[in-house]
């Protein structure tokens, strides 16, 4: 049933001698909340502007809702709600007037109930002139105008930059609401935690090319999981980057070997086991940054865990520096399978009793 809502093949766009898009392939299926990640200047906004028919591609093909974005721009726009990355409103119009103008220009005004609900939820004063709005408030106007429209496709270009955390949760609730309704969302962002929370599929763009695309799980499988435990040396295990300090062992393991490693650890009753799935941060850095920055991120994560373990902090071992995916915490049973976490976890290394080792493990979802 999956109908393709956005399909771009080999999109190219040059501005003078600058090659902004260098063969972008982007496919978004109906009903997806698709994360579109990339650093500043990678081509996110240019891609979106091509998909909206504001820019004309120099090469490649693009289809939005089955139509040609350049030729059929107006027809496509009737079914789209778009929030630009940098919202500039008309200084003489109030926020409320801007919302109604935008929704009416889309061809169908906003239902009054939706409009009132959103203005209330986003806590916007619609009677103020747009000139008096802060960046966050301008963003809210564009978001309300988008969410109040019953569109088939929502294209949001870094929509939460400037929103406070409270408003960000309102934003996420709205995304879930329209996704439940069956709408498709293309969410460009560089806030990784947001993408991890909201998006089922992700495309990563760098230097005008899509370098990675797929579901979050697929992407994570490409990456190594960091495993750390206290116990015997990892002989015969498919670990790389192994570090052994006394009983403490740390290394990384390819996604497909994780079950085998868990079994091995379970059999040998390894303690203080932590498995950290690769965060989007790492995926991101791997594709944008140089390798050194990836290593730094990985090192900091491990450091955070060791620190957490050393002070016997809570089981999550969350590294403070970067947003991590929501982790599942549990215990490895004797068969090497992950069990739900026991209600009360004795802090390690406080428990001397070897019969009930306080294994802690985290598993990718």
């Amino acid at each position: 049933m999956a109908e393709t809502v956005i399909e771009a093949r080999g999109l190219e766009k040059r501005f003078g001698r600058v090659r902004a898009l260098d063969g972008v392939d982007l496919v978004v299926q109906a009903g997806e909340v698709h994360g579109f990640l990339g650093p500043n200047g990678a081509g996110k906004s240019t891609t979106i502007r091509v998909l909206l028919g504001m820019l004309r591609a120099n090469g490649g093909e693009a289809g939005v809702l089955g139509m040609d974005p350049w030729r059929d721009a107006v027809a496509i726009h009737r079914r789209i709600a778009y929030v630009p990355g940098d919202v500039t409103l008309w200084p003489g119009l109030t926020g409320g007037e801007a919302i109604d103008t935008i929704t009416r220009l889309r061809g169908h005004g906003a239902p009054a109930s939706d409009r009132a609900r959103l203005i209330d939820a986003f806590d916007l004063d619609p009677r103020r002139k747009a000139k008096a709005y802060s960046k966050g408030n301008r963003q809210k106007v564009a978001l309300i105008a988008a969410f109040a429209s019953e569109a088939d496709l929502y294209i949001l270009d870094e929509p939460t930059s400037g929103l406070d955390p409270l408003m960000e949760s309102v934003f996420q609730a709205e995304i879930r609401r329209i996704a439940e309704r069956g709408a498709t969302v293309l969410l460009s962002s560089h806030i990784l935690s947001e993408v991890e929370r909201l998006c089922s599929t992700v495309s990563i763009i760098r230097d005008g090319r899509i370098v990675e695309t797929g579901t979050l799980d697929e992407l994570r499988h490409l990456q190594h999981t960091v495993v750390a435990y206290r116990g015997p040396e990892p002989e015969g295990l498919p670990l790389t980057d192994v570090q052994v300090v006394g009983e403490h062992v740390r290394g990384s393991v390819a996604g497909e070997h994780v079950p085998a490693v868990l079994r091995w650890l379970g059999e040998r009753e390894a303690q203080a086991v932590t498995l950290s799935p690769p965060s989007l941060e790492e995926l991101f850095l791997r594709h944008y940054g140089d390798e050194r920055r990836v290593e730094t991120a990985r090192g900091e994560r491990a450091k955070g865990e060791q620190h957490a373990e050393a002070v016997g902090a809570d089981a999550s071992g969350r590294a403070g520096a970067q947003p991590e995916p929501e982790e599942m915490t549990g215990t490895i049973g004797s068969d090497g399978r992950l069990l739900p976490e026991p209600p009360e976890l004795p802090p390690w290394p406080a428990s001397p009793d070897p019969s009930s080792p306080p294994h802690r493990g985290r598993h990718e979802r």
Partner: protein
Amino acid sequence: MTGTGLLLLAALRRDRLVLLLWVVAIAGLWAAVLGGLGAAFDEEARRALVALLSAQPALLLLRGAPAGIGLGAVMFVSTYAFLAVMAGFMMTFFAVRHSRGDEDAGRAELVRGTAVGRWAPLVSTLLAGAVQLAVLCAAILAVSLPLGLEPVGSLLLAASLAGVGTVAMLVGLLAGRIFPTSRAANGAAAIVVGLWFFVRGIGDALGEPSADLTRVEAAWPVWLSPIGWGAQTHPYADAPWEPDATPLLLFVAAVLVLLALVVALESRHELGGSLLPERFGRGTGSVLLGWSPAGAPLGLTARLLRGSVLAWGLVAVVLGVLVGRLAPVVASALEDVEQLRAIVGRLGAESGGDAEAMFLTALAGIVGVIACAAAMQSVLRLRHEEVAHGEIVLATAASRLGWLGSHLLVGALTALAVLAAFTLVAAGSLAADGDDRWGQLAAIAATHLPLVAIYLAAAAAIVAFLPSTVAWLGWVLLVGLLLVGDFAPLLGESWEWLQNLSPFHWVANPLADDPDWTGSWWLLAIAVVLLAAAAWRFRRRDALV
């Protein structure tokens, strides 16, 4: 005042290209007229020219009151008012750009967040303005002295332009503190400078010509206008008049008063604040605001241009009242002087109307230019809308052609409203005195429609083909071609081709027995071609870049 020096350097560097354009335009006009007049007009010709000028209140209003027939005096009277208006615009735009404009763009916040004193931005702006005016004065002197004009007179001319420029800068700074947006501040300050021109013009038009028609003693209204003060220094006056620096004292007084006001406002100014505050508005948008028939966001465009439409309309009404009151006065004044009657009779036979009709035609010409400016401004605004709000508007069901069309339509209607308001008010006012000029004024207004079409189309073409030049190209084409049309005759016959380039040269004369409309049809045809090309291109080019 920490950081004043750095801000001054930054301001000068930022404006170096704009400054160059203005100085070249102002000093260049002065040089062109100087060269042309000097070569093409001997003393006899100049005497005839001044007599002609003295005989036509419309010319007195538009150019100024002559103070002799020497080369310098004739140059001054034919050019000074334009130079002064240009210097005034140069400095009001400069002042608004560096006050309200900086706050609008968010630059002021960035700058004030660094280690600069509270007064540093204002002081550096004043100093940068002074430097710009000094450059302008130097350019004027550099043109005048080598070409043989008297040094004292040239100094007075330069000082007058500097005086007008300084007062204009202070008016711009005040406007920047009074109005909440730079567009409103620019408009208000420009209207003030325009008023100076017209108030001086009224004084000159009501002036009293000397018996030999070599000079005109201006009436009291000139003393209400800074441009008039400069004119009253009579820089290159022939005996028995003499150059006189005393009117310059009025500039000193005005600068002191305005500066005190600027300082008072600045001392209580908060970032983003304005004397006229932004009020709360409606929490919902009306259906009209979102009205967009056939993909043309007409409701939005009309709302955005509402302020400037009203301002242009108001200017037209004021000019209509002015002309309605002034025309009978100047016509009767002409009848009183024997020699003038002779000249006017001869001119009237050439152009097909009486003295009053000639006056009406000349003033309606100004209104025609204003209509063109209004039309062009509405269309040029599209580029600003595209860059600022294009991402929002072009992602809705509004089409590109519809968007362009909405601006063209509002521009055309504004121009029509300007012409209609002037015609109705002026003709109505004259009719109230039993002077029926309805047909004449309506015909004159109609001759300007092809001009409006040309400038609408030119603006659309600029937005479509040369969007990066939108800030100046249109205005250069309007003012430049207007000046070419006005001044080319002063340059002599070998420059006639230049005059032919100006669309203003091709406006029909409805007062003639058999008006020649060929030029008008050509203008319309060129406008249609330009519009079609612009529409084609605006649909095809990348938006927002």
